[in-house]
C-alpha cells in the first residue's frame, strides 16, 4: 500500500472509465475498457491481492474483451452517443 502510486493508478482508472463511456466508436470503447481492466489488475496487485489480480487479468481483461470484440464485430460498430 503506497498512497501516491495508489492515487496515480486510480487517476488512470478514472480517465479510462470516462473515455470508455464517451468514445463513439464501439471497438475503441471496448479496447479502452480492456485497458481499464488491466489498470484495475495493477491496483489489486498493489493492494496485495495477487490471486484476484491474475484472475482479473486472465478472465475479465482477456475473455471479457474477446467476448466484447466478438459481439461488436457481429453487430454494428458505430453508436450515436
Amino acid at each position, binding site marked *: *500500500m503506497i498512497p501516491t502510486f*495508489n*492515487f496515480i493508478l*486510480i487517476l488512470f*482508472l*478514472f480517465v479510462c*472509465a*470516462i473515455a*470508455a*463511456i464517451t468514445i463513439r466508436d*464501439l471497438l475503441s*470503447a*471496448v479496447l479502452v*475498457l480492456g485497458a*481499464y*481492466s488491466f489498470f*484495475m489488475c495493477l*491496483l*489489486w496487485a498493489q*493492494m*496485495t*491481492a*495477487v*490471486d*484476484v489480480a491474475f*484472475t*482479473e487479468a486472465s*478472465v*475479465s481483461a482477456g*475473455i*471479457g474483451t474477446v*467476448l*466484447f470484440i*466478438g*459481439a*461488436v464485430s*457481429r*453487430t*454494428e460498430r458505430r*453508436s*450515436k*452517443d
Partner: protein
Amino acid sequence: MFESLLHHYNYWMFIGLMMIGFYAMMAKKNLIKKIIGMNIFQSAIILFFISTSVKGGGVTVPILEHPEGAQGGFVDVMKYANPLPHVLMLTAIVVMVATLGVALAVVMMIYKRYHTLEEDEIALIRRKQGLKC
C-alpha cells in the same frame, strides 16, 4: 476535515467510479454502452471489497512464509493481508464474466431481430408494429 479526507479518499474514488458506471447504464442509449457501464460498476464494487482487506504498512500477500518452520507454530496474523475478501471477490469476478456473456448473447439476438442497437430506434420499430414497448 482534512484527516477524514486522508483516511477516506479511496472510498470516495470508488464511489466516483461507481457513479460513472451507473450514469452510463441509465443515460446511454446504445446497448453495448450500457453493458460497458455495467462492467465498470461491478469492477468498482469489487475494488471496494478488496480495499477492505488492506492492512497498512509492511503487510505481504496472504501466502505463508516458511511453511516447514511454521508447522504447528505461531503465525503472525498482522503480517498478512486479510484473505477472506480475496476469496469472495474471486467468485464475484467469474460471475461478472458469466453475466457479461449472457448480456452480449441477448444483445446479439436483439440486433438480429431489429437490426439496430439504439434503444430509441428499437422502441420506434416496436411502436410501428403496434407492440408494447
